[in-house]
């Protein structure tokens, strides 16, 4: 769509962004040209000593012209806002997908975990025409994951999760990079973003060294960290049952509700930041005991408990 070979666009979303960019550039370009042409015409016509008439302006002119262009600009700008905001809102709806890739950024590399547990560094492989969701967090400072070919980016923060989702269409190798300045080797936080046909992707992921499935690993940790001692259904401690927890609205101890998403669960584990209503605040916090990768596994396990339950109740 755009004339540079360096800017491939490989999703419908990316093409839509390009259209928006071009239309807005044309619109603002027209406004700019209007001003430039007027300045040049006036500069020539009304250069000092030129014969052009300098008859007084009619009295109504100043006010009406002024109000006219104020209103015109206001409406143009509001229109652009409305048009762009519409696109923003439609892009907000996260697709329902099980294809989730975990990304952990750290100074100065990207650690990537495929849904099947395969790990890669500074590379993200995805199948084409599949809704993909990235669940991202950082080990240290704020980074930002930028996928120019998809026209998307999102900051990656320590201590919470942020998400990106997309459906790439054209197979090929592209780049992704860090765009939030993160220290000495910031410019080296760049990697390959590989879009493959689903068949190629399947073949590629089969060939990856066998690793534990994330959720299975999480189940193991759940026992080894002693979580199950409290959280198992038959435990003597009055602790919430984690089945069906993910995605639910949780009433909090001090009043109010919060959605049990990745950030909530992570905060429960590491900081015991939120206390669900009706439970004693006895859960120890695991800051410094459980590391980021283990949190990711535990999260995958807790999420799988909800998936199981949905399956069971259906």
């Amino acid at each position, binding site marked *: 769509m*755009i004339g*540079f070979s*360096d800017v491939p666009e490989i999703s419908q979303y990316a093409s839509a*962004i390009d259209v*928006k*960019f071009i239309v*807005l*550039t044309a619109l*603002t370009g027209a*406004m*700019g040209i209007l*001003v*430039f042409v*007027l*300045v040049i015409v*006036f*500069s020539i016509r*009304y250069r*000092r*000593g030129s014969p*052009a008439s*300098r008859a*007084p302006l*009619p*009295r109504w*002119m*100043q006010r009406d*012209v*002024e109000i006219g*262009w*104020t209103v015109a*600009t206001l409406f143009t*700008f509001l229109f652009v*806002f409305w048009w*762009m*905001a519409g696109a*923003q809102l439609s892009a*907000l709806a996260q697709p329902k997908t099980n294809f989730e890739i975990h990304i952990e950024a750290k100074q100065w590399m990207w650690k990537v975990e495929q849904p099947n547990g395969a790990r890669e560094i500074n590379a993200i492989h995805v199948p084409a025409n599949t809704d993909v969701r990235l669940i991202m967090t950082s080990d*240290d*400072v704020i980074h930002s994951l*930028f996928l*120019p070919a998809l026209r*998307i*980016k*999102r900051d990656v*923060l*320590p*201590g919470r999760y942020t998400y990106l989702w997309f459906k790439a269409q054209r197979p090929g190798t592209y*780049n992704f990079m*860090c*765009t*939030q*300045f993160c*220290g*000495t*080797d*910031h*410019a*080296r936080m760049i990697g390959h973003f590989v879009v493959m046909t689903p068949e190629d992707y399947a073949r590629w992921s089969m060939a990856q060294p066998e690793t534990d499935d994330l959720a299975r690993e999480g189940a193991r940790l759940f026992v080894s960290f002693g979580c199950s001692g409290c959280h198992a259904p038959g435990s003597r401690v009055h602790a919430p049952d984690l089945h069906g927890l993910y995605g639910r609205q949780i009433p909090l101890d001090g009043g109010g509700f919060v959605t049990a998403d990745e950030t909530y669960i992570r905060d429960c584990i590491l900081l015991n930041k939120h206390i669900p209503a009706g439970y004693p605040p006895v859960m120890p916090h695991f*800051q410094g005991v459980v590391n980021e990768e283990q949190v990711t596994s535990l999260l995958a396990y807790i999420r799988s408990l909800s998936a199981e339950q949905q399956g069971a109740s259906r």
Partner: protein
Amino acid sequence: MTDTTLEFAPAAEPLEKNYLNEETTLWSWLTTTDHKRIGILYTLSITFFFFIGGLAIGVVRLELMTPHADIVSAEAYNRLFSLHGIIMVWFFLVPSIPTTLGNFLVPMMIGAHDVAFPRLNLLSWYLFMLGALFTLYVLIAGGVDTGWTFYTPLSTSYATGHVAAAAAGVFVAGFSTIATGVNFVATIHMLRAPGMTWFRLPLFVWSMYAVSLVMLLATPVLAMTLLLIFAERVFGMPVFDPAQGGDPLLFQHLFWFYSHPAVYIMILPAMGVVSEIFTCFARRRIFGYTFMVYALLAIAVVGFMVWGHHMFVAGQSALADLVFSFLSFIVAVPSAIKVFNWTATLYRGQISFEAPMLYAMGFLALFTLGGLTGLHLASVPLDIHLHDTYFVIAHFHFIMVGGTVSAFLGGIHYWWPKFTGRMYPESWARFAAITMSIGFITTFLPQYVMGYAGMPRRYQIYLPQFQIYHVISSVGAMILAVAYIMPLLYLGWSLLYGRRAGSNPWGATGLEWQTSSPPPKENFHGTPRVVEGPYVYHDAETASGSEQAAPRPQGAHR
């Protein structure tokens, strides 16, 4: 134009006592409370910092000629662009026009003998120098590698440089900004000459008033934010560190709550300067004076409510994105109005193209190009792609360098005869003004393109497909460097050899032109009385009833 203003002072006019030759010792300069002398002190200081900041980015641009690391290490590269940003923002752009032209001209334009608090004015310069020189020392001796934005937790827990010391330096300099703001607000409220009503103030004074309000309200937030950084880094008080329950995004909210208004601290004064220049060289009243005043105030107020547009990808809620996007579009309206008004001021004028006018026209073109791309960045879906790329770099340099620096230089040339009593060599100045615009466009236009193509900012090594743009940009930077050095030379020359200017070489209206050049220490002999609005460059359009139809200006100095 009035008869008196046309008079050129004879070249051999015996020099009366003026603010420059009244006392000439270094000590008299260092202890002066004369707003004009303080303006000169500031001009010399910020020029020094401008060239230091420029030198740093010169090395950066040289480094970027190739996609690899060639002349400096990654660490040094990061320190260089951090130095450039910190110096240029806090020790050049923020103080640039207010402390130099503003200090010199605000009292003169309103017919006062000095600012309201002359000693505070001097203190502000000392605070500035203390903060600025200390920060410069830190940036060179130790180095800071966080960029000028000091994002947490990089700055608080991870960066290796001397972040705390630099924050302390900027903190101190912030008080000089606040002192200047207090001084201008008080001066403009209290010291206007008889007859100088609010709606007779030149737009430059209005811009100084608006910018002072922004300085007063925004700078304390910066001070507080820097203090928190300091506390976390030095005393380990966890405010931003998420590992201890802090919130790194809190920093960004606080920082941009200051730094977006700071953009207006940089651009509002520029708008004031070019309003004076356009009217003078087009021989026209400003088109839509009252609209211009309200536009300045609207920008100053709404400018406080748009900071979240820097955080569209930072993890802010979607609703907040929407609100900040909306407000950013709204704040663009008054700026557009101002552009239209300057353009309309040229209509039916008697336009001539001396150097200040060329700078002002350069301002108009570059500010328009920079402002319009602001709409791209205010659009959430586009900003998600463009954020932290060279597109943003190009956008704000168009406004802050293409806009503010052009206006600053235009103002320096325009009032140079008033400051020094001498004329600069006109053709050199025109040449420098045109070179600057050409150099500027060459440097920054390619950055829009590579930004859209996905070139991230703050990268020393980059993908080879961007090299062509970087090379063009670096060549432009060299042209720009020449254009900035030229005025230094010929203005310096003119101090000694320039033709004597006389009190009003441009035939301009405005009280500052009604007294001799350089002005006497007390600005005016006697107190001026004002009987009409600004910019009476031609007969009123209409008979009585028009808001600006009023008699000719009455300068005090006869």
